[in-house]
């Protein structure tokens, strides 16, 4: 599956929700089911500090692909993280660099990812792209 295909799958999942309540309930569910990051990965170096919530992001590079794990202290943020992990984890660096993340707007979460919300998500995406750039340079 390509990044675009993973994004389309998420768009389809969200298309059944007609009001915001159902959508956020789903995000909360996703947040609760996000696989827990290794406790050792929740380090100061992996911490992306937003004013509102904290996000931890760790990356492993194996056989040409980057695997991300992440966590947050806020559950809705965690739900959105789980979508980002689904899209980005297990991809080649170049694919991550090229991704435009159109699905976020499609499913109506662009507000949560605007730089003004200071919840750490914008910085998280930036960090994901940095990892991709770094790993592609080290190849």
């Amino acid at each position, binding site marked *: 599956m390509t990044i675009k295909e993973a994004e389309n799958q998420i768009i389809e999942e969200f298309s059944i929700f007609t009001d915001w309540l159902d959508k*956020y309930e789903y995000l909360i569910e996703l947040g609760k089911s996000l696989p827990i990051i290794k406790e050792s990965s929740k380090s100061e170096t992996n911490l992306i500090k937003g*004013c*509102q*919530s904290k996000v931890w992001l760790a990356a492993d590079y194996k056989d040409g692909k980057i695997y991300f794990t992440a966590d947050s202290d806020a*559950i809705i*943020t965690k739900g959105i993280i789980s979508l980002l992990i689904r899209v980005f984890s297990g991809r080649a660096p170049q694919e991550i660099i090229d991704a435009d993340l159109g699905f976020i707007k499609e499913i109506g979460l662009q507000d949560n990812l605007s730089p003004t919300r200071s*919840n750490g998500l914008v910085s998280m995406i930036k960090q994901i792209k940095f990892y991709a750039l770094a790993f592609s340079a080290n190849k």
Partner: protein
Amino acid sequence: MELIKDISDIRHHFPALSQSVNGKPLVYFDNGATAQKPDCVIELVNKMNSGINGNIHRAVHELSARTTELYEGARESVRNFINADSREEIVFTSGTTASINLVANSFSQAFLKKGEAVLLTEGEHHSNIVPWQMACERHGAKLRVLPVDENGCWKMELLDSLLSDGKVKIASVAHISNVLGVVNPIEELIEACHRFGVPVMIDGAQGIIHSSVDVKKLDCEFYVFSGHKLYGPTGIGVLYGKKVFLQKMPPWMGGGDMVGTVTFKKTTYADLPLKFEAGTPNFIGAAGLGEAIGFLAKIDKNFIKEHEEILVARMLEGLASVDKLKLYGVSDRKISLFSFNVGNVHPTDVAMLMDKMGIALRSGMMCAEPLMSHFGVSGMLRASLSVYNTVEEIDYFVNSLKRVLKMLS
């Protein structure tokens, strides 16, 4: 003049309150951050931007004369509002933070020396910590901190021991904490500080809204506040200072309007209060603040007091009905500002979902990290109400909160 003493009358004057947010009628509970503006303030600001606009104190032409009149008229309104002795004691700044920075810089320059100290409390906003920390670093002085107890109240019994060695040169404390919503015993603190010859600055960002301030009765050396929390425009603030101190303090910023004569050899400074008003001041903001103060005078004082008591009682009752809710700042001198957490639920999650229901709350550290550490949390939720909020809004807020908590549990 017929005074306003009816909540729907008051709301009618605030156009922002009748809007919908996320498809729901707005419930604006973030007044501690900034207040909505009454129509008269909006109209005056519009009128000035679209016509009555000329730089103040500078020209002989009609527009300049009219803005100068509005600006100085606003100064008189502020003077009267806080019962200061003279216009020379009212300095316009850009806000509370700017006022504190002005005093932290200028006062410290004149009076703070190596080995001396500045007294704060644990409940201060960052704006009343950082400027003093910077001043202390510059002058080789230290901060001393009066701790708060588990309810967020000052540990007054420790005050004398912090003052008794004579090292403290100024105390700077909040009238009402922006997190705890408790009216601090500033009268008692001022009295104690004066016994040791220590001048006191009161950060009135929240205090000016929720109590009538009389600087002469308080006898504080400085009192500072912002216009935008007091229904005025953003970018305007006030520094009240006793003349005897303002006269001894050097100017902080240099430039237009603060000078007497300028030569390359030596510049003399303008008299008070212009000595501290370098550059073109926010004269439209100041006029707007004057107008906001005028609007407040039109509301029945007893109504304001009784209405706030009703809101506080209703809110405390509502919050008490929420399972596992912990309220920070418990006192019989509580204003309509409530910070809390519920179990382990993250404040941001609650605030985000409440926003979807049209309710504006604050979440996070609220610019008071030391106070967050004191309570062992990384954030709180805050509902801060104002004269235009209603009992119905509180009920909707409490019901919505319960619904949101259920979603998150």
